[in-house]
């Protein structure tokens, strides 16, 4: 096996691990979203949810899962718009929930 092949094999293995661990990312995102939905002073949870999606968006594409990365980035940007709003409209929050569920269903 050449050096390039060996590296590619490692990268493929890491991509497989990434895919296998996606459920952990979604568990974290769903937990953060549940706290966001609970209301009250939860700006930190919105920031955390944004970070988790940002992380997924960047990582997925880098491992070759371009579509998942693009979809995650789309939801990330929706949350970014909401971050600046002190009073988030329930409809907007529902939309985020739907977008998260749709994202998870693609995996």
């Amino acid at each position: 096996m050449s050096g390039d092949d060996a590296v590619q094999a490692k990268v493929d293995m890491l991509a497989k691990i990434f895919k296998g661990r996606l459920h952990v990312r979604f568990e974290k995102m769903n937990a953060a979203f549940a706290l966001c939905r609970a209301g009250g002073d939860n700006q930190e949870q919105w920031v955390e949810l944004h970070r988790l999606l940002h992380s997924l968006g960047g990582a997925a594409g880098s491992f070759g899962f371009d579509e998942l990365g693009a979809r995650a980035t789309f939801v990330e940007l929706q949350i970014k718009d909401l971050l600046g709003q002190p009073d988030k409209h329930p409809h907007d929050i529902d939309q985020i929930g739907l977008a998260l569920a749709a994202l998870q269903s693609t995996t």
Partner: protein
Amino acid sequence: MDKSTIFSKTAKGMAESRAGGKNLAREHARVLALVNGKTSIGELIESGALLDAKYEPALTALLEHGMVRVFESAKNNLDALEWRQGGDDVDFSDALPTLQVEELTPQESVQIWAQARRGASELKKAGFYSYGKAPLLSVEGGKSGLTALVVEDDDELAELLTVLLSEKGMQVRVAPDMPKALAAIESGARPDVVLLDIVLPGMPGKDGFDLLAYIRRKQSWAKVPVVMVTSEVSDDQVMKGLKAGADGYIFKPFKWEALYASIREVVGI
């Protein structure tokens, strides 16, 4: 008004200041001249430059007229102020809140925006953008044995970067959050290149740009090439990098070829 607040001039304020404040009331012009993006209101009062009883109406008017903006409030930095590195007895309490900015003239602003726009466009096209090429083989010892600090909060992405950079003979250290990155900068050996994510956990309200500013202020690290890793391609982001002293940008999700090309360019290999 919070006396820990630091104000800086806007482009409009700088133009007015250069014109001698002739369109402003005398006290307003005097306060505008004192605003410098570095010194808090409290410090200006303490030094005697501002009178405690008089500054507030002037600053309020300058804010209303768009001549100054709030640059930094210590209240926003409580997390940073109170942060302590557990176990290592390293105190960074004053590391990040004293971020300094260089105010630009309107002409410089136009030039830098044009450069930022070119950079963003290049970033979209090629996946990376560097502000300038380092001279070839500027690194001691040449191409082999380079060291890299990867500041990345995503474990799996950090592992991927480690595998890819190691394949090129680089020794890689990973810092997964702001506090650990600060600890690495404070106590670790200077690397040949830093790959710096922008959105990082650990210090609310702070991001990779604050770390970059810290690196540039630390004498022993000031000249380390820093490549910002971003998933946001905008003129504004590239502008921030230009002002903060980044050497390049790589778009995330990254392609390995683009990442390595950007490292080669900024390190000079």
